[in-house]
């Protein structure tokens, strides 16, 4: 499906060989960090993690289209690949999985990435509000909000798409349809089988794209951004991908899908597929891939060290960060907490 009128500003041009190699390096880094994080959970370094295994192309390809000097991105809890692509500090990002701080320790304003959002579809409306703010300010910045096939069942997604269409808000709704909402497959989640198909009802142009093809995802996202920047209102992108791992490190997919079903549904690994393509096109060689793998491993190791060095936040932050202007009740609770915890 592709109902998006082509922009004529040439922004959708195919990435240069250098950009293609960068995309691969990002995907390799994300893959390695993702696998490492699952291992760290098993080793007791972090208490939990929501893997994005298999969604590297969708996340790196879309995140790569973001202009972090003006745009703003609204993630869920499974956008590690987007965060990495946007250059967010990964120790600060992964700190949420170390249970250091809900939302992560990174600065959302500087990194242009809203805090990690645990409510399914919770931030989709925020993107619409932020985007409408850009319209009011006469800015050409774009909001991109991530959601999944499961989140598409939430009423807030309907409200967000309707608001965005009525207000012509510059929002890219980036749907990663990964086939599964924990244990429930898309066919039992999304009536009609496609989130992108719903866009027509709002008069929003939509693209359904192979979410495991990073170049296709990047091109689709760039076109969507160009459409939004020109004041044409929102776009829905549905990237068809597959959640190769469990929903989270607490999940057991064996209870709802067989390994055969997993193999059939997942199709070809997006990282392997991109590698084959780059090799065939003569864009990268074995030495490059080996180097990409080595730097991904080194990066993950540094992130692990950073996470292990990360201590708990001081308890007074519980009280101090509730409001900009604190209250007498909070101040007195903070005093009690301090006095009474000193005796423990």
């Amino acid at each position, binding site marked *: 499906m592709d109902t998006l009128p082509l922009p004529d500003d040439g922004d959708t041009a195919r990435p240069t060989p250098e950009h293609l190699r960068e995309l691969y390096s990002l995907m390799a880094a994300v893959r390695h960090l993702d696998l490492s994080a699952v291992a760290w959970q098993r080793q007791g370094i972090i208490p939990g993690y929501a893997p994005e295994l298999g969604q590297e192309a969708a996340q790196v390809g879309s995140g790569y289209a973001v202009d972090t000097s003006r745009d703003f991105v609204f993630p869920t809890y499974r956008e590690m690949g987007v965060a990495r692509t946007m250059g967010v500090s990964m120790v600060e990002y992964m700190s949420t999985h170390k249970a250091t701080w809900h*939302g992560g320790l990174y600065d*959302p304003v500087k990194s242009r990435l809203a805090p990690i959002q645990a409510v399914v579809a919770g931030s*989709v409306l925020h993107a619409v509000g932020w985007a409408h703010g850009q319209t009011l300010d006469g800015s050409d910045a774009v909001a991109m909000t991530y959601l999944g096939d499961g989140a598409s069942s939430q009423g807030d997604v309907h409200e967000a798409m309707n608001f965005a269409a009525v207000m012509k808000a510059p929002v890219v709704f980036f749907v990663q349809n990964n086939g599964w909402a924990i244990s429930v497959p898309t066919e039992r989640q999304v009536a009609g089988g496609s989130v992108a198909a719903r866009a027509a009802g709002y008069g929003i142009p939509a693209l359904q794209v192979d979410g495991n093809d990073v170049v296709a995802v990047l091109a689709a996202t760039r076109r969507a951004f160009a459409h939004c920047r020109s004041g044409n209102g929102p776009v829905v992108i549905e990237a068809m991908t597959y959640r190769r791992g469990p929903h989270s490190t607490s999940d057991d997919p064996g209870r709802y899908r067989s390994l055969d079903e997993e193999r059939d549904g997942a199709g070809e690994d997006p990282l392997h597929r991109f590698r084959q393509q780059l090799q065939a096109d003569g864009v990268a060689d074995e030495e490059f891939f080996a180097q990409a793998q080595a730097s991904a491993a080194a990066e993950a190791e540094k992130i692990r060290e950073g996470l292990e060095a990360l201590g708990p936040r001081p308890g007074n932050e519980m009280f101090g960060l509730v409001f900009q202007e604190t209250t007498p009740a909070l101040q007195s609770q903070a005093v009690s907490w301090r006095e009474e915890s000193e005796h423990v």
Partner: protein
Amino acid sequence: MSDTTVEDEATMAGDQHGATVTLSMQQALNRALDEVLAENPRAVIFGEDCGRLGGVFRITDGLQAKHGENRVFDTPLAESGILGMSVGLAMAGFHPIPEVQFDGFAYPAISQIVCQIARMNYRSRGTLPMPITLRVPSFGGIRAPEHHGESLEALFAHVPGLKVVSPSNPHEAYHLLKYAATRPDPVIFMEPKSRYWHKGDVDTADGGTPTGAKVLREGRHLTLVAWGAMTARCLQVAELAAEDGIEVEVLDLRWLKPIDAESLVTSVRKTRRAVVVHEAPLTSGLGAEVAQLITRGCFDTLKAPVERVTGFDVPYPSGDLEDEYIPNIDRILFGFQRVLEYRRG
């Protein structure tokens, strides 16, 4: 419907430099919003029918015509959308002043209010403040349909990250809204809709302190604690009691979060008796919180347990039974009779 709005320059002319004027609460709120828009270019007002119509209660009457469609605008009819959008606008540096058309319509937006607006400052470690002033026409008393007469203060006050305020008269409405709409934190502004058309003197130049509770009438025998529309009723009761020689102090709590514990204790240490009055249901109502704060601060001097005169633990009834539900003068008098006649066993 409204005879002093921003469109009516003639009635405005007399008090340009701050004097005491007589306004209804609707007019006072309208004027406060007009001034907030003029003073803060980042303030935006939106909600269902807030724009062209001026709101179903005409609180935003004339504001779109005066300040433009970018500052005052209508949204689709979806409360979660309105509140979720407020979060994004706040993140983009605006000061959203959304309206939820009636109290009961806040229920569809509870997730955005509780999980998002109340927590974003905390979640973002103070980098994404939520200066959102949510106006909610509140409480009962106007014979309205179901879900148009709810009292949600205990629900909101229980949520970490929200502040809650309710004005009791036009003067308070004007000054508390102007104050709330310039705060960097989310404030739920509960407007007592049954008082919208009652007039009162508004001193636009001097609002006094905008925080904490306020003594509306001094007395030495008993303190009546109330907020919103119930303060007017408590003042009536105080007048009646005075005929019997009972001097009732009426404390308008104003801020339901944070609650001004100090003023509660100061008043009740003097009167040694307290009755708290609210429209919301009894069980786990804000009256329980008030009673605890008074008991803790005045245990040694209290002559009787703090009484509560409240709505009942029933869904808010239809108009025909409304007067049976909302604390009336008789029930308040019975309440303080129990306090006055209390004897230690």
